[in-house]
């Protein structure tokens, strides 16, 4: 069995290798412009969106040059104003020049664009063109100038749709890495905010950047993130989910060990705690590692609200999580094994409802849960215009008809609805969906062993959660292992002025977060203790 899987894996590997683009040899540009242009044309398959603008330099226009860029990827205005125009009108470029001098002049005088790079290798050249740089080729020199002219149509910064908060910044990340990184820079104005970029994906060559606060983030964790990212050798990275799945500590779990968010303030807060953020171009979802279990029950807003309110809400979230996990299971266990635990009046009501139901409670619950999941999935995937139809049909089918037909009991509908609402109330979709899956396990164990089975399943769940690690940090910390000093920011949220230190597990040595005596107090007028009236 083992070898079988291995063989399969190996076969797959070789397939991707052969199917993907072959590793290029160190191919260099040629001296002749015509040859270079030809090479570009050929390599890009004469694609229409690759613009090659030929022009002339030198005293009598004897020197030929070309500007190459991809339509739509570049900011055309920049190309017209700062490349084409200056190349054509700059008087010094029309003196008698050698190609070497021309390139020198271009870099130093003519092109007024921030990023300008000399490139010799074809691989570099193609990567930069495809990333939206404008390429300037001059005849007679085996070099290209890559000017950063990235632009084109992009989604603007909008309000977050997945991490909604009542209070706090309305900005959400966009699909552009530069914008996203800049958004964090705007929040944390410190030179210790370091970023590292790399391109991942053989074909897509996606920009992936990691960001951390030097001196706060633990060096080992940063190194671990770096090495895990470097290890990735895949054809495409289309979303940060790709990265997430490729850098997880453990894959055989329904729980997320990488946190993702759309909110810059959430990322900033996490960076300040010593975590590492991973930006992936093309998605507004930024990854944050290491992630702790309790983190998925926290929202940025918790820190904006007063601590008592935030604590109450966190308790509620944990409660909600438990409902969404064991709601139907409790109902199954109580009605099929532990009828004595239900108060008499309630037991009679439930019994009356179940009288006409032809299925055992478990089957009933499964029917309802599956129906609900179908509805939910349909609601998400349907075009918005049809979505409301689905909900109407769903409400009628589940809420009315099924009960009236006597196929399910009203109590079951209530249980399933509460569970459904609870699963939507969990702040993290990733945790909610894993609870949704584990719910079926609980239902199954409740149907076979009652509460005893549920407790067994629960112990298994706890053991599993405790066995997880996220970049070496125990997933359940600071509860397991217990770090008393950090429990203040788990289910509880201690007052902001009491957050003296950063989390120990994540932060290297710069642990002090704030000065002593941050607790606010009314103005002290005089030492005798007289108030305002005195």
């Amino acid at each position, binding site marked *: 069995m083992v070898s079988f899987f291995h063989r399969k894996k190996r076969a797959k590997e070789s397939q991707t290798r052969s199917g993907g683009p072959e590793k290029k040899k160190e191919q260099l540009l040629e001296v002749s412009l015509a040859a270079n242009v030809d090479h570009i044309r050929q390599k890009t398959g004469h694609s229409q969106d690759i613009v090659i603008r030929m022009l002339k330099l030198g005293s009598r226009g004897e020197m030929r040059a070309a500007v190459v860029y991809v339509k739509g990827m570049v900011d055309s205005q920049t190309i017209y104003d700062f490349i084409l125009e200056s190349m054509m009108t700059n008087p010094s470029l029309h003196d008698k020049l050698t190609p070497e001098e021309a390139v020198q002049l271009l870099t130093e005088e003519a092109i007024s664009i921030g990023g300008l790079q000399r490139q010799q290798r074809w691989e570099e050249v193609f990567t930069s063109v495809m990333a939206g740089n404008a390429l300037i080729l001059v005849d007679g020199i085996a070099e290209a100038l890559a000017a950063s002219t990235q632009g084109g149509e992009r989604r603007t910064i909008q309000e977050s749709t997945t991490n909604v908060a009542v209070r706090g910044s309305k900005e959400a990340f966009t699909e552009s890495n530069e914008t996203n990184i800049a958004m964090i820079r705007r929040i944390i104005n410190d030179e210790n905010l370091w970023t590292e970029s790399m391109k991942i994906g053989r074909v897509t060559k996606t920009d992936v950047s990691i960001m951390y606060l030097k001196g706060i983030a633990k060096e080992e964790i940063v190194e671990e993130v770096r090495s895990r990212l470097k290890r990735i050798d895949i054809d495409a990275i289309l979303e940060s989910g790709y990265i997430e799945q490729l850098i997880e500590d453990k894959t055989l779990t329904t729980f997320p060990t990488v946190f993702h968010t759309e909110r810059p303030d959430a990322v900033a807060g996490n960076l300040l705690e010593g975590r590492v953020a991973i930006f992936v171009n093309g998605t507004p979802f930024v990854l944050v590692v290491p992630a702790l279990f309790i983190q998925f029950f926290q929202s940025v807003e918790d820190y904006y609200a007063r601590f008592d309110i935030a604590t109450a809400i966190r308790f509620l979230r944990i409660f909600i999580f438990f409902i969404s996990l064991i709601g139907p299971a409790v109902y199954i266990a109580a009605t099929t094994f532990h*009828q004595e635990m239900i108060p008499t009046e309630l037991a*009679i*009501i*439930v*019994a*009356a*409802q179940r009288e*006409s139901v032809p299925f055992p409670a478990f089957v009933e619950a499964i029917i309802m849960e599956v129906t609900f999941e179908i509805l939910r999935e349909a609601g998400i995937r349907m075009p918005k215009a049809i979505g409301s139809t689905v909900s109407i049909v769903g409400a009628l089918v589940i809420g009315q008809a099924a009960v009236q037909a006597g196929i399910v009991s009203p109590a079951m509908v209530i249980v399933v609805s509460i569970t459904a609402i609870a699963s939507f109330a969990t702040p993290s979709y990733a945790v909610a969906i894993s609870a949704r899956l584990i719910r079926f396990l609980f239902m199954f164990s409740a149907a076979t062993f009652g509460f005893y089975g549920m407790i067994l399943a629960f112990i298994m769940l706890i053991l599993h959660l405790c066995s997880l690690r996220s970049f070496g940090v125990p997933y359940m910390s600071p509860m397991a292992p217990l770090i008393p000093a950090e429990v203040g920011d788990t289910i509880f949220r201690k007052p902001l002025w009491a957050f003296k230190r950063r989390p120990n597990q994540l932060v290297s040595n710069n642990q002090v977060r704030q000065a002593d005596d941050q607790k606010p107090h009314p103005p002290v007028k005089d030492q005798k203790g007289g108030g305002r009236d005195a």
Partner: protein
Amino acid sequence: MRKWLLFFLLMMSVTGLSGCWSKKELSELAIISAMGIDKNEEGKYVKTVQFVNPGNVSGGLQGGGGGQGPAVTVYTAEGDTVFEAHINSSAKVSRQLYHPHANLVVIGEELARTEGVNVLLDVFERNAEVRSTTKLIISRDMKAGDMMKMLTAIDHIPAEKVNNTLKITEKMRGENVVVSLQDFIKWSTAPGIEPILSGFRVEGNLAEANKQESVMQMDPAANLEANGIAVFKDEKLIDWYEGQTARGVVWILDRVKQAEIDLEWEGKKDAVVYQVMRQNTTIKADTKKDIPEITIHVRAEGAIREVTKPVKLDDPNIIAEIERAAEKEIKQQLQKTVERTQKNQSDIFGFGQAIYRQNAKKWKGLQENWNETYFPQVKVNIEVEAFVRRTGLRTNDHLSELEKKQSKGGE
């Protein structure tokens, strides 16, 4: 991998083996609400079991024709033992008998008088399904089975009606006590105290009471009512206490929560109604003499609830007088109860326990024949302190104003 496969198969087989072990769907259960025990002429135990018809209780929900039939169904079975009768009853019921929601055991008076209650209780105590908090009552002047064959209004399940009635009346009137299975067993096995139970009787036409029409009327054909306290001696029922005598027992046991006491005022009987709102009763034993002396100390606080004759309630002296009158009345009532009980030779007050607590050695000597020899001879001192704390929304009654008006009119 083979190891995992094996593990997986093992796990799967476990779930398969367990199957539906002890699994029982709610709709497969016959939820018992009450049980009654009698003995018939042939000397066999007759067990009456009252089942809930869930569909008829929570009326008008869906399907099942909510509220169409009676809320409960009664089956009767007989056997040489209570358990046999129980087993035999399963021959008549289509579902599994389910006890945990039974909260009432009714014992026929006749059976309680001839055989006592304790012999019947072992079967309940032993069964894991039966709650030890199940309440115990005696059906007065009738068979338990007959009492269970009647329907009740408001609370559609008779067992619940009985339990709630008992609870409320103990609190409001103090003439009954709620006694559960475990209370009774503890009570009867403890030295120096004898158990009591509450009685229930049916008022009205019993023959009509088992029909649905009965509870559909404004005035049901018959009603179940808490009535009296059953006094036990040597495990058997010997006497019924009612009214003030019954309350005296509850009082001495320090279980009275509220009690109303009618006082004579200026020659008029029942002129002032004093309601005890809070009370504390302690029993102390003085074991210096050969026959111990018992002191019952009552401290009662209450309010004036009604006057049927003008009383100057704004006068502290009058209030003090009322307090004295209340003390006297309470003392008299308790005395009557004590006298009757001493005559019955059954120490339901737990005087023996008080002596044991005071002087364990002495109790050892008295223990034998306590009920017959010593208990009737014990001198009982009753001390009562009563306080009037409130007079309700009025201080002086409007009756005195009325009197004033009339006397003016007369002038």
